[in-house]
């Protein structure tokens, strides 16, 4: 009797697995369900850096102070509505004074250079409420933000260790996204995505239960397998980071839903749900 029952469950498992990735075991059916809801980004963000480097610390401080003031003043002069400036981390480093090429190409044998103090400040420039903005207007506004930053002498883009290494290796800047589109308040969308994922899981489980001639029971467990936004990373950077074991200092670990492209951003939820099987 026990052997016949096991054979029946095994047959059901084999039959449904390719279609719905269902795992049956002795007391339930496990299925995955995914839900996806898309929406236009609500804001666009730019990571910029200002700062200065000099052999004399006093000079580095003066340069840093000047650079930051000029950058903030430049944005203030623009009087752009919905623009928010967030001052973020400040970094002080002591570098060799060699240019990146020298450092890379002549490692260990480069001529002695006087070390310099680098002081830099990350600033996040956030342009809010862009979801209803016509594309033309948005592009023009983004252009103003980028030009303002560049003209003020700020560096646009995150200070990525990987891109810096690439730049050193090839003596030139690698391409990297400079704007991050953000769905600022994705809570409601995420709720909807959860509902959709759960509904899909239930539908799949019911289908499998029907095929297996069993009655679907209650949910025994739920596991969220991944929550993904549209965040991208330059493939070259990913490769270099993997090769050299670098963790990107600007890793987007704030769980916001972001994308490097201006398009509807999907909010995805993947659930793995295990349903019980009710005895007939």
């Amino acid at each position: 009797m026990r052997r016949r029952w096991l054979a029946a469950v095994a047959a059901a498992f084999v039959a449904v697995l390719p279609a719905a990735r269902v795992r049956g075991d002795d007391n339930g059916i496990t299925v995955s369900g995914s839900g996806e809801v898309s929406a236009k980004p609500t804001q666009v963000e730019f990571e910029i850096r200002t700062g200065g480097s000099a052999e004399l610390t006093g000079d580095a401080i003066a340069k840093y102070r000047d650079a930051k003031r000029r950058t903030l003043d430049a944005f203030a002069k623009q009087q752009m509505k919905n623009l928010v400036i967030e001052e973020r981390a400040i970094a002080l480093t002591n570098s060799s004074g060699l240019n990146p090429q020298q450092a890379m190409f002549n490692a260990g044998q480069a001529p002695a250079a006087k070390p310099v103090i680098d002081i830099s400040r990350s600033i996040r420039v956030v342009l809010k409420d862009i979801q209803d903005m016509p594309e033309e207007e948005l592009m023009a506004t983004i252009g103003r933000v980028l030009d303002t930053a560049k003209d003020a002498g700020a560096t646009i883009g995150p200070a990525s260790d990987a891109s810096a290494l690439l730049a050193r290796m090839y003596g030139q800047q690698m391409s990297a996204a400079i704007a991050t589109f953000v769905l600022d308040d994705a809570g409601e969308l995420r709720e909807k995505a959860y509902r959709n994922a759960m509904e899909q899981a239930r539908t799949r489980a019911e289908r499998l239960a029907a095929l297996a001639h069993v009655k679907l029971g209650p949910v025994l467990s739920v596991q969220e397998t991944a929550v993904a936004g549209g965040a991208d990373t330059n493939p070259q950077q990913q490769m270099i980071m993997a090769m050299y074991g670098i963790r990107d200092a600007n890793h987007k670990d704030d769980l916001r839903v972001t994308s490097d492209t201006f398009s509807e951003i999907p909010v995805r939820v993947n659930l793995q749900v295990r349903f019980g099987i009710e005895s007939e």
Partner: protein
Amino acid sequence: MDAPARAGSGSEVQRPFLLPAQTGEVSEALEDFARYSKRADWNRAFKSLQKVLDANPAGLVAGSDGFLLSMRARLMQLLAELPADGREAYRLFYDAEAKKLFEEATAAGVPPKTEEEKLAKLASSYFAATVGDAAADRLGELYFEKGEMGQAIDCWQAVLRYRPDSALDRAGLLTKTAIALARSGRWSEFRGVERVLRERHAGATLTLGGAETDAGATLAELAAAAPPAAQADPAATPDIEFPAAAAPLWQFRYFSEANAKAIATAGTDWGARSSVSLMVPPAVLDEKRVYVNLLGHHFALERASGKLLWRSAKFHDIGTRIQQQRYYVFPEQYGIATAEGRVFCVSRKPQEVGQHGTPFRLYCLNAEDGKQLWGSESVAELRDWSFCGTPLVSDRLYVCAYKPQKASELYALAIQPDTGKPTWTVMIGTHQADQSQMYNQRTAQPALALGEGRIYIDTHNGALVELNADTGNLDWGFLYDSEMVTQQNVWYGGQPATMDTAGAPILAGSRLVFKGMRSTRLYQIELDGPKLGWERPVSKREMLAGLDGERIYLSGDEVTSITRDGDRRLAWSLPVPFATGLIRPVTTHTRVYQFTPRGVYELDKSTGDVLQIFRGADLDLGSQGGALFIAADSFLTVSNVAITAYPVQRPRAAASR
């Protein structure tokens, strides 16, 4: 002359450039003389001195603070510093011989040439003897009569400076010096001497042409005829107002877009950018025309219209030519200068643009029609030279050069502009890295500045020298802090091009301010001495852009301003877009202008605030920025792709700072 020069106590420092120094034996003898003099061991001291005199030295000897002084100046300095008993001892040793020589020189019937030779021997070998001052004074008069004002001035100034014990009439020496200075157009120095005479020797008389005259009145007469004080201060250049629209008066593009792109991306197919991708052709203006040296293709445009007036060769295929041999193009070595209807170019022939080892020639062209008046290939004395850097033109043409078979030895030449015949040639020193093997790293091209009777040459490789403009004599050299370029571990594809900047030294009265291309130091030298005024750390990528009474302005990937008062504080700095080191920023009355890849930045000199960014008509062409020229009626930008002229709306009202 062959021993490597070392600065001060830093003999262990590896220097990228060595100045011509005395042999170790002569230097040691001089050191012995100084040491024994301190101990008042006169016998030994003068034996050592005799060794120095017998060597007839012409090179430099180590002074302090990185200076190397001419042996003659150093000797005079040491003799002038002798205490009274030392002077007495010196005269016991040398007076008899000196007096004999002086009598022979000044005896009746002695031919002038013999008189000059004997006096010159006296002035150089027995200057501290009793008759040394009189010999120098008489020698000065001989030079004056021959019209060799520079030499005459040197003689009289030597007595004034190094013979404080001299019984000669100081007022008379000062007056003669001032007259010689006026005759040679050295008006700034003239004013200084005239002031000393007025303040300290009022009422002094001088016998001129057999008649006694009032020295002050004579100099006042000369002063009245002097031109107004030179306005070297960039604050004298008026500011400009950019036009409201970017529409240019005219634009001259050198290449097709394909050619421009080929040059701008040279080397980037694999590896790093090459130096040729940073090319901005050197250009100069006169009242009527713009002259350009585009990698050996010389051409002139009409200032008013941009019309091509003449050119030495077509330049449609430059892109193709440089692709194959881009490591050896050296765009920074091309130079151009103009004066009095002539244009002087340092160039390779267009068909030799990338040929390794091919010399750079010096050409003199007629500014009117571009016809070659002479070329260094056709002047026998110049045939073997390869020229470098931008020539400097006054009554003579001053330029640096090397011989291709000994490319590391750098020389300075003074050339007659009309014939190409050299007046003098002098070795400045030796590069430690072969400048023809730099693999995309910017080569050190000397930059020249003309003072009154003196030429200052920054090798941009760790040494600066002063030469007598009349004679070419090396007065002194200064070894400064500069990065030693490595020529090891050169990668396939060449070293990545470095965007180093290089400016010329700037004279401000009796001070010289300069910054070497690979140096992280800004220096001020007090020329009365000479001695180091101060040095200050700055960014290596910056070049000296200008100075005024209060500030020094540096430019590169950032523009910075440093105060000239006691603490030399960094007043402000501004990072600016930067895509080539071949830039030419301009400082005016209250502004600093820099032509960048994102337009011409106009900065307030007092705050560094960006007042305006003029985005001109070449931004869409892929301009990397470059040189800026400001004239009364227009301003011009010279980039890697085009020369563009824009109208100046009106000069800004001169605002006081």
